């Protein structure tokens, strides 16, 4: 690993200095959100930015947690995120396995089509989804969101899991088949345990998309089925914007993606770069 490199014009000190500066630029807006959520309204409304020194208050959190319908939104987001993630991993895993391990008529077509539909813009789904909801009277039904999030996430999950299956030596499965295991047994007993990290990455990406998605959720949910991003956007009204409360809500929404990032940054980066670097 310790290869010699052509001397870069960047010394080790300026290297760190640059990284620290970039990190600060990246973090500043996120920090401002977190801080603003804990500020009393007087501080928020004053024209002078306050970075650190203010008397923190939980007023904003108290408001959104008790007077809004935060618990409903949270519950909806958790349900939609969890179920669509489980379905995506289950269906996507089976599909990726077949694509990685068997050859069948239509295999190339399936692989190419999967990659093509990955890019379908949510805005294109909006009108047809709306039509479907009207036609089958599905408004106020979380199942619609779960269905569309599963569909939106499957292409990427299939593609990512395909790469992970490819890395597992075929001999392991062959040995199991010789021992008399059925295809399903091979899948669940032999492969699944080796695929843990693959499924973790795919799961993080899927859950994050479902958790963050806004436009379909805005369109397809009613009062009792709203998810968190829709709830947060609802704080912007024509009569005024309660920045303290909005930022508190934003902070709460960002907690799960932030936790994923801190605990699985390496895997997330692997998933992000896999597309460009290996391809």
């Amino acid at each position: 690993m310790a290869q010699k490199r052509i001397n870069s014009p960047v010394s080790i000190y300026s290297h760190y200095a640059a990284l620290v500066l970039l990190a600060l630029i990246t973090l500043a807006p996120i920090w401002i959100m977190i801080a603003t959520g804990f500020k009393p309204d007087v501080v928020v409304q004053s024209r002078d930015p306050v970075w650190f020194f203010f008397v923190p208050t939980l007023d904003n959190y108290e408001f959104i947690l008790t007077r809004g319908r935060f618990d409903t939104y949270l519950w909806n987001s958790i349900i939609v995120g969890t179920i669509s993630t489980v379905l995506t991993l289950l269906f996507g895993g089976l599909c990726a396995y077949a694509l990685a391990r068997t050859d069948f008529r239509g295999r190339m077509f399936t692989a190419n089509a999967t990659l093509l539909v990955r890019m379908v813009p949510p805005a294109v789904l909006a009108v047809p989804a709306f039509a479907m909801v009207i036609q089958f009277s599905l408004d106020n039904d979380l199942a619609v969101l779960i269905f569309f999030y599963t569909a939106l996430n499957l292409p990427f999950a299939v593609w990512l899991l395909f790469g992970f299956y490819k890395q597992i030596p075929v001999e392991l499965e062959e040995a199991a088949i010789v021992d008399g295991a059925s295809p399903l047994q091979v899948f669940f007993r032999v492969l699944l345990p080796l695929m843990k990290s693959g499924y973790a990455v795919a799961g993080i990406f899927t859950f994050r998309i479902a958790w963050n998605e806004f436009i379909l959720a805005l369109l397809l949910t009613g009062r009792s089925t709203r998810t968190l991003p829709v709830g947060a956007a609802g704080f912007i009204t024509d009569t005024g914007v309660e920045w303290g409360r909005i930022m508190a809500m934003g902070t709460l929404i960002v907690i799960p993606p932030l936790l994923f990032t801190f605990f699985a940054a390496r895997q997330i980066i692997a998933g992000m770069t896999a597309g460009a670097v290996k391809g």
Partner: protein
Amino acid sequence: MQKLGPYFFILPAVAVMFAGLVYPVLQAFYLSFFDWKIGTDIDDAPFVGFAHFIRMMSDEAVLESLWVTLRFGFWTITIEMFLGVSLALLLEKPIRGASVFRTIFILPLMVSPVVVGLIWRYLFDARIGWINYYLGYLGIEPQVWLGDAQLAFFAMVFTDIWQWTPFIFIIVIAGLQALPSEVLEASKIDGANWWQHIFFVKLPMIKSILIIALLLRLIDVFRALEVMFIMTGGGPGRATEVLSLHIYNRAFTTQQLGYASAISVLLILIVFLLSLAILKLGNPMKDKADI
């Protein structure tokens, strides 16, 4: 049974992707031939043939939002690629603590686009926004950022650069660090200086990564609408109304579902062509099966 096996495995995923992605696209195509308005029964909607498509070609609102999308894509991607690639080339050397920085750099990508929009709407706020405050130190008068066509467009570009430059940076670093060391050694032994090394060795070797990153970003410019939706709603006028947002507004604000479907056919065509370009560069799933 053995022959049908693979089909059972792919069936659930293929069925959901068909019903949830392919079928809606076909339906959008179908709906584009009807003048369907919100609140009316879809079966009563009059058939209008290609009228929507003909109207679209001279519809200033559609052309303007297409133009906004292209300009937005041009500025954001050019700046993001320049910044991301330069920073990656300068800072690629593996150093202690690199993983901490990388963790920080992916944060903007993990934050919900709605929240990104909310944060920057606050920062660009004309009255209490932090950006106006700090520009005051430079002697710049407070601006109504999101109320002026050009400034609002700039604010969108700025926000996008904050959010997406790290993506380019991380992808390019990963590509650079995966380059075979023999080639880099050879270039060094041949006496290339730092600039030659960059322009004649490294950049050509990561060309495909750069192209894929560019295409991915371009597709995303055509797909994303949340940040604009939250910060400006597409306004003022149509200054920040990208094509996706225009479709949404057409469908659910002006309530022309059929016409909006026709515009989404245009959008899907653009995205489809860009995706084909990516596919041409290689589908990793094309490798022959091992069994």
